C-alpha cells in the first residue's frame, strides 16, 4: 500500500486525469452533441468564424492591382525584383543549357554554345579537388557523369542554374541582415520572432503569395527559394559573429579600427569557418526548395519527379529521384569540404603554377568548344549513348509489388487498423473547446502559465479559422509518425553510440538521408504503398528519422566518463549501465531529438499532401492549386502554431530535465 502511495504524486494524478477526460470526451463527443442537441460541441460555430483568409486575399489583390507608391505601383516593384533575378538566371541558363543567341524567334543567331558537358564535369572536378582532395573530385565527377549518362543532364542543369542563382542571393542577404542584427539590438529583436515563424511555416504556404505576386515560373520559384533558404543564414551569422572572442574585438578597437573595418576586416573573416557552415545549410535548403518549387514552375529535376509521380511512371521517377540524390550529395560534400578547409598558403610562380586548376579548366572549356564545332558529341552528350534505367526500375518495382504484394498489404492493413485508425479516431473525436483547454493545461503544467495562455490562444485561432478537424488529422499523423520514428531511431542511435563501427555506418547513412530534398522520399513510398495516410506516414518517418538517431547517439556518447566509471565500479552490468546511468543522463538530448523529429515531421507532412492526406497540408496544397493566398497563409500559420507549441513544450521539458540533472 505504501509503495503504491509513493507512486501517486500530484503531477501523475494530473496527467492521468487529463488523459482520461480527453479519452472519454473524444469517445462520446458525438453522443453528447446528440443528447444536448448542441452542435457547437463538435463544430466551431460558423457565425463566429474568423475570416482572416478573405482579409489576406483581399489585401494581396489590392497590392497587385491597386497599390501605388506615388512614383511606381506595387506591380512595378515586383517586376523590378523579378527583372533583377531574371538576368543572372537567364545568363546561367544560357551558359549551361541553351547557349547565347542574339535576335528573337526564327531570326535568332547562335553566338556561342553552352558549356559542353565535358567542360562542366571538368569544372566540378576542379572545384572538388580545390575543396579537399582527389577523392572528393572523383565523387562529384562521378555524380555529374551519372547525370549525363542517364539522360538527366538538361533538367539537372536547370536545377543547378536555380541553385547557383539563389545561393549567393540568400547567403549574402542573410549575412547582411545577420550583421545588421548583430550591430543593432532592435533589428535582432524585430527579426527573431519572424525567423521563428519562418522556420515553422510550411514551405507551400509562402509559395502561394509568391505565386500571386510574381506569377507562375522560374522567377517566382527562385524568390520563394531565397525566402526559404535565408533565415538559417541570418541565424548562423548572428551566432557566428557573437562567437568571435571579445578580446579580438578589443584588439581591433585598440588598433583604431573604424566600425566598417571592424566588420569586414575582423568580425566576418574571424567568423568565416562558422559562416561557411551556414552557407552549406543555405545550399542544401536551396536545393530542397528548388525541387519543391517545381510546382510553381521552377522546372528541372523536381519537375521530372512531379511529372513521373503524376503519370505513375515509376522508372522515370526513380531515375530523376536518384539524380536529385546524387546532386544533393555532390553539393553537400563539396560545400562541407569548403567549410572545413581553413588555411591555405598562396602559391608562387607563374600563372600556371599559381592557379593550376583555373588554367586547366579554361583550357578544357576552349578545347571542348573548338572540338564541339567538329564533333557534336563533345558539345552535348549524344542521345544514343544515354542509358535508360527507367524500364529496369519499373520492372524491379513491378516484381517487388507482385512478389511481396500480400506481405506489404498485410503490414499496411495491420498498421492501419491497429494503430493509425484508432489514433485518428481519438484525435478527431476531441471536441474543439476541450482541445484548446487541454493544450493550454499541458503547456501550463510544463512551462508555466504564460505558455499555457499562448498555446490556448493559438489553438483557439485554429478552431476559429474552421480548421480544427484538419489540425487534428495533422496532429494524429505527426504523432504516430514521430512515435514510430523514435521507436526505430532511438535504439539505432543507442546502438550507434555503443558500437563505434556500426555507429560510423549508421550516422553516415543518417547524414546522407538528411541532405536529401524532402520530395525524394515520396517516390519509393508511392511506388510501394500508393497514396493515403499510410504512405504519408512512411515518408514522414523516413524523413524525420535522422534527428532521432543522431540526438540519441550524441546523448549517450556525451555522458561524462567519470559517471560511467562510477557506474562500472559500482558493479553495473552493461545493460544496467545503459538503463540506470546512460539513458537517464541522456534524457535532455533525447528530448531535443524529439523536438527536431517533430519539426521535421511537420514540415514533411505538408509535402505529403501530394499523396493525398486530409490534413492542414492538404489545405495549403489546395490553396496553392487555387492560388488562394488567404487560405494558404491561414492554414500555414496553423501548422506553424502547432509547431511552435510543440517546440516550446518539448524544450521546456528538456530544460526541466537538465536542471534536475544539474547538467
Amino acid at each position: 500500500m505504501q509503495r503504491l502511495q509513493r507512486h501517486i504524486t500530484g503531477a501523475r494524478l494530473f496527467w492521468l486525469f487529463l488523459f482520461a477526460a480527453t479519452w472519454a470526451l473524444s469517445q462520446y463527443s458525438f453522443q453528447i452533441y446528440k443528447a444536448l442537441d448542441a452542435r457547437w460541441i463538435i463544430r466551431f460555430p460558423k457565425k463566429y468564424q474568423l475570416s482572416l483568409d478573405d482579409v489576406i486575399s483581399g489585401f494581396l489583390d489590392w497590392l497587385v492591382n491597386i497599390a501605388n507608391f506615388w512614383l511606381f505601383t506595387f506591380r512595378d516593384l515586383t517586376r523590378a525584383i523579378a527583372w533583377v533575378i531574371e538576368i543572372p538566371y537567364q545568363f546561367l541558363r544560357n551558359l549551361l543549357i541553351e547557349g547565347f543567341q542574339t535576335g528573337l524567334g526564327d531570326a535568332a543567331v547562335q553566338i556561342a554554345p553552352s558549356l559542353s558537358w565535358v567542360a562542366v564535369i571538368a569544372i566540378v572536378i576542379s572545384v572538388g579537388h580545390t575543396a579537399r582532395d582527389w577523392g572528393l573530385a572523383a565523387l562529384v565527377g562521378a555524380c555529374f557523369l551519372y547525370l549525363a549518362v542517364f539522360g538527366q543532364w538538361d533538367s539537372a542543369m536547370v536545377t543547378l542554374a536555380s541553385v547557383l542563382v539563389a545561393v549567393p542571393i540568400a547567403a549574402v542577404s542573410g549575412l547582411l541582415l545577420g550583421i545588421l542584427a548583430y550591430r543593432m539590438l532592435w533589428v535582432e529583436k524585430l527579426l527573431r520572432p519572424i525567423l521563428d515563424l519562418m522556420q515553422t511555416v510550411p514551405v507551400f504556404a509562402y509559395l502561394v503569395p509568391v505565386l500571386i505576386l510574381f506569377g507562375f515560373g522560374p522567377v517566382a520559384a527562385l524568390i520563394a527559394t531565397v525566402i526559404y533558404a535565408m533565415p538559417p543564414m541570418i541565424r548562423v551569422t548572428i551566432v557566428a559573429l557573437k562567437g568571435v572572442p571579445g578580446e579580438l574585438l578589443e584588439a581591433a578597437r585598440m588598433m583604431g579600427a573604424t566600425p566598417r573595418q571592424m566588420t569586414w576586416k575582423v568580425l566576418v573573416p574571424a567568423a568565416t569557418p562558422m559562416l561557411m557552415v551556414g552557407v552549406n545549410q543555405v545550399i542544401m535548403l536551396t536545393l530542397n526548395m528548388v525541387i519543391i518549387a517545381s510546382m510553381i514552375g521552377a522546372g528541372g529535376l523536381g519537375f521530372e519527379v512531379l511529372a513521373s509521380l503524376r503519370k505513375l511512371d515509376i522508372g522515370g521517377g526513380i531515375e530523376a529521384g536518384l539524380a536529385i540524390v546524387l546532386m544533393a550529395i555532390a553539393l553537400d560534400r563539396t560545400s562541407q569540404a569548403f567549410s572545413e578547409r581553413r588555411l591555405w598558403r598562396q602559391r608562387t610562380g607563374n600563372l600556371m603554377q599559381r592557379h593550376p586548376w583555373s588554367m586547366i579548366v579554361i583550357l578544357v572549356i576552349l578545347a571542348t568548344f573548338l572540338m564541339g564545332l567538329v564533333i557534336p558529341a563533345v558539345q552535348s552528350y549524344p542521345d544514343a549513348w544515354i542509358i535508360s534505367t527507367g524500364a529496369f526500375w519499373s520492372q524491379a518495382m513491378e516484381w517487388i509489388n507482385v512478389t511481396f504484394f500480400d506481405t506489404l498489404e498485410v503490414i499496411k492493413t495491420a498498421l492501419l487498423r491497429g494503430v493509425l485508425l484508432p489514433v485518428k479516431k481519438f484525435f478527431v473525436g476531441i471536441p474543439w473547446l476541450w482541445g484548446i483547454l487541454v493544450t493550454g493545461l499541458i503547456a501550463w503544467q510544463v512551462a508555466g502559465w504564460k505558455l499555457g495562455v499562448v498555446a490556448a490562444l493559438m489553438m483557439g485561432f485554429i478552431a476559429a479559422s474552421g480548421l480544427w478537424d484538419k489540425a487534428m488529422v495533422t496532429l494524429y499523423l505527426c504523432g504516430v509518425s514521430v512515435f514510430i520514428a523514435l521507436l526505430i531511431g532511438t535504439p539505432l542511435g543507442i546502438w550507434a553510440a555503443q558500437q563505434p563501427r556500426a555507429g560510423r555506418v549508421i550516422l553516415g547513412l543518417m547524414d546522407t538521408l538528411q541532405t536529401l530534398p524532402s520530395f525524394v522520399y515520396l517516390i519509393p513510398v508511392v511506388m510501394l504503398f500508393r497514396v493515403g495516410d499510410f504512405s504519408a506516414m512512411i515518408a514522414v518517418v523516413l524523413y524525420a528519422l535522422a534527428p532521432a538517431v543522431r540526438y540519441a547517439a550524441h546523448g549517450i556518447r556525451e555522458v561524462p566518463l567519470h559517471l560511467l566509471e562510477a557506474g562500472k565500479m559500482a558493479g553495473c552490468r552493461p545493460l544496467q549501465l545503459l538503463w540506470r546511468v546512460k539513458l537517464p543522463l541522456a534524457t535532455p538530448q533525447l528530448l531535443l531529438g524529439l523536438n527536431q523529429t517533430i519539426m521535421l515531421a511537420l514540415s514533411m507532412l505538408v509535402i505529403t499532401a501530394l499523396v493525398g492526406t486530409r490534413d492542414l497540408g492538404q489545405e495549403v496544397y489546395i490553396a496553392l492549386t487555387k492560388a488562394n493566398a488567404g487560405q494558404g497563409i491561414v492554414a500555414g500559420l496553423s501548422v506553424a502554431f502547432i509547431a511552435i507549441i510543440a517546440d516550446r513544450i518539448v524544450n521546456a521539458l528538456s530544460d526541466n530535465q537538465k536542471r534536475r540533472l544539474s547538467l
Partner: protein
Amino acid sequence: MNESVILDCRHLWKLYGMGAEALLDGGLTPNAAALAKANVIGAVRDANVQIYQGEIFVIMGLSGSGKSTLVRCLSRLVEPTAGEIEFDGRDLLRASDSELIEIRRKKMGMVFQQFALMPHMTVLENVGFPLEIQGVDRLRRQASAQKVIELVGLKGRESYYPSELSGGQQQRVGIARSLVVEPDLWFLDEPFSALDPLIRREMQDEFIRLQNILKKTIVFITHDFDEAIRLADRVAVMKDGKIEQIATPEELVLNPKTDYVADFTRHVVRAKVIRVQSRMDPVTSDRFAGEVAHDATIEDIADEVERADTPLKVMKDGKVIGQITARAVIDVLVGRG
C-alpha cells in the same frame, strides 16, 4: 626615470547597474555598503593613478578586483562612469570617436591575455594589421612588421598561422603587433597568464630584455604578485575595485599599508625586493672589501658580502653614501627585521 606624467587619472569610477550615475552625482563617494544597497557593482572605485614617462607600472589584483576594468577605462575600451583621464596633456574622456581612433592608432598599443590574434592571418599579416587598418601600403607595412618580428625573435615564422604556433610564440606575435605602431603607452593585460610557468618565466625575461631596448611607458596587469614585483617600477594593488596601495615593490614589502597587502608580501622572498640603500649604515669602517650599487637587491650582493670579511661601500652617482655589512645582509636573508 623621467618624472613627467604621461597618463593622469583622477577619481575614476566604473559602476555597473541601474542608476549608477545618480550615486555619484555632485562628487559623492559611496562606500561598498552603499553600492551593495543600491544593487550596483563597483568595478573601479575612486582610482587615482599617475603613470610616469618610461616606467613599468603594474596593476596587481586577484580576479574580480577590477584591474582589467581599470585598464580598459584608461584606454577607454570601457566608458568610465565618472572621473578624469588626461593622456599626453589632453582630456581622454572628451575625445571624440575619431580623435580616439587617431590616439589608439598612433599612441597606444595593447597585448591581450588570450593573444587575440586574427586566426585567418599569417604572423606577418597579423603584425602588420594595425598598419593595414591605418591604410599603410603593403610594402611599407611588411617592412615594419618584419622589423618587430625579428625584434621578438620570430624570424623565419612569418608565413605561419597562429594555430601553428605555441602559446609563447603566439604571445610574441601579440607583442610584436602591439609594438609595430611604436606606441607611446603600452598596455599589457595579463600577457603571460595563459602560459605554462616555465614559458612564463622565459617570456618575463624576454619582456625585460625588450624594455631595456625600447624604454616604453608600460601599464602591466597581472594577478601574480611575484610577477608584479619582478617587473615593476611601481605596483598598484587592487581589491574589490579599490586601489589599496601604490608603491615600489620594496615599499610594499617593507611598509604594507593594509592587511590585504601584507598578506601578499608576507611570503615574498625579501632579499629579492629589498635594496641595499634601505639596509646600509653610515660609514664607520675604513677598510672595504668592495663597492655595490645603492639600488642593487640584497640577493644580488649576498654572495659578495658573504665572501668578504669587511663591509662594502654603497655607491650612488659615483659617491659613497654608506656601507653594508654581512650582518645586515644575513638579517634580511633569514627574515629578521
